[in-house]
């Protein structure tokens, strides 16, 4: 049984992002969640990422799953009658690197080193989310990333996700919105797109 908050393991890593495989099929953290992985150096390097994508696919590359439910009455029945399916499929998620912590100090920019493969990946606690959300400088990384998901969607999802741990959600959203209005000075349409997605 994995420790509390541990959701998976790094299976692909670079300076700007990492991919983790979930321990449980379909149990990826929600889009926009703050996750972390730890590089066990002498002074451990904690690396923070925002989940921007999740994929479930066949374990063996090239082998596509086939439709199996024609004679079953419900989706659950499929898994019940073919329990090996859970072993043949896997869920992975990708996180964009947005910060790190070393010597107890939190930085909202890229870590000096990428994570290692098999590094454990954790969902951040409420306290960590609150601490990370004290400054919005990381939004800039999200806005400028080139990802399969649009930056507006990702920013909005991240803010919605973070806001859940705040008592005064609308205060949090207004402050974040103001930061975005400044970051997106000349890009009114992007701003409008995000504001429309985070309106309390």
């Amino acid at each position, binding site marked *: 049984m994995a420790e509390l908050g541990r959701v998976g393991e790094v299976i692909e890593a670079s300076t700007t992002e990492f991919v983790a495989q979930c321990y449980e099929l379909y149990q990826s953290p929600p889009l926009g969640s703050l996750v972390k992985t730890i590089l066990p150096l002498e002074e451990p390097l904690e690396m923070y990422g925002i989940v921007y994508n999740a994929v479930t696919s066949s374990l063996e590359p090239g082998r596509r799953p086939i439709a199996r439910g024609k004679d079953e009455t419900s989706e659950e029945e499929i898994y019940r009658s073919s329990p090996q399916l859970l072993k043949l499929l896997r869920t992975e998620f990708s996180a964009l690197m947005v910060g790190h912590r070393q010597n107890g100090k939190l930085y909202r920019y890229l870590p000096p080193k990428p994570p290692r493969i098999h590094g454990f990946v954790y969902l951040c606690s409420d306290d960590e989310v609150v601490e990370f959300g004290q400054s919005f400088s990381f939004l800039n990384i999200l806005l400028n990333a080139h990802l399969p998901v649009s930056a507006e969607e990702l920013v909005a999802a991240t803010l919605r996700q973070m806001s859940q741990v705040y008592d005064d959600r*609308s205060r949090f*959203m*207004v402050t974040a*919105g*103001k930061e*975005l*209005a*400044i970051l997106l*000075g*000349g*890009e*009114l349409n992007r*701003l*409008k797109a995000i*504001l429309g997605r985070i*309106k*309390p």
Partner: protein
Amino acid sequence: MTQQSSQRLGIVTDGSLTKGIEVRLDSSASVEDMAVGRYVTIEGEKRRFFGMITDISLGVIDPKLTLTPPDVTDPFTAEVLAGTSTYGTLHILPMLTIGGGATDTIEGPQPVKTVPGHFSAVNQASQQDVELVFGGEDARKFYIGTPLDMETRICLDLPELVKRSNGIFGKSGTGKTFLTRILLIGMLQKGAAANLIFDMHSEYGWSGTSEGGRTVKALKQLFPEQVAVFTLDEANAKRRRVSTDFVVRIGYDEIEPEDMTLLRQTLNLTEPAVEAIYQLSRKFGRNWLQSTLGLPESEETEEMLKGLSIHESTFQNLLRGLHTIERLPFLMPHSPDNTVKRILEYLDRGINVVLEFGRYTDITAYVLVANLLTRRIYAQYRERMEKAMAEDTAPPHPLVITIEEAHRFLNPGVSSQTIFGTIAREMRKYNVTLLVIDQRPSGIDDEVMSQLGTKITCLLDNERDIDSVLSGVPGKNELKSVLARLESRQQALIFGHAVPMPVVVRTREYGSPESYKDFLSPGQTDTKKQTQKDIEELWK
């Protein structure tokens, strides 16, 4: 260092010493709470700056925002955009530096020589800041009014003020007379100068009227010991139950040709007619006026005029003018008393003299008398000053002469020839200065305007008047917008020698029982209720 009471408004984003400073308002400060004429402090890195808001504007980061306005009915969007994508800007004219660190506030306010750095914080000026710059009633400083939305007392250094001639301007009904009364009380109380007031509408000596027919007390009622009322119209004074000190009569033989030149415009005299006056006075001497009026229609007269090469039509033009003067009831062939001497006697005892014109409010009487008396009184001061300098004795106590409708005496056509032009230009060479009151300052000679030390101006709406009042003042354009937005009464912009920087005041209240009490016992606040009641009774 900063008072926690002061409210932060925004940050400096741009600017120059000559054009002023741009301040980006914080999103927490609403443009609608700002007002031109208000004071701010700017916390520079090395020193604090003190300035005035002179303009307020709106800005957007992205012009698209104005083309496709966001849905501001949604409170979230509106709140996010306020202060970020849309923002308010203040334009601030920095005026003074008021000390850097906490220690060197002792220096007192200094004129600005630089601007605060980028992104310096801008705060609303606190009471203490304003007091540091203008405040503190003392033996010299007199409380004249309060800044907009503040209780602090703005004070004028009166002995400093009277070193130069000064002006009070504003269109009709804006509070010039009330302000003048207050200022005269100040001079009287601070002993800054003796005053001679040519009181055209009889409102300074004894009960003036306020709008709505309410009467207000004037100087003699409040300070009977220190004020003498002279009148040109005894009957009128009696009817108004004014306790007058002297009835002024002027003899024809006191009117000199120089007194007539100023009347050229009001009497419609031609240039040759004025020349004729000089010729006639050479011929007849002191009695030229009476002699001229007494000339019979005869061949002899014609001969004489021909001899002086005075044309018949010129003579007729002159006669019409002289008849107008002759009809002034306070004139007589020979005056039994010497008005100039009487006025000087009072002034020498430090008593202020108000000369009421009663019913004779037409401009001819006013110009004639003010000019005639001032010329002679000025000559006396000049003599005394020269004597004092030669003998190294005390110079005469400063004298301030108050005239209304000043453009009649100081317009470009006459200012170079009149005594008033001379006084204004000579500054205080002989310890005499002017307090000029006018609703049409553009009518006054520019050169005279530029000599005025301190100008106090109520609302003006004529562009030329505004230009003439502000001509040569640093920050003219900024002050223009402040001046044009004064309230229509009891507010004034003060700038010049007697204040460290231009200041907008709500003029001190005049006319209520409490206000009289305040003037009579300066410095004493909150006395017991009973005393107040007594005083109210007294002034009912």
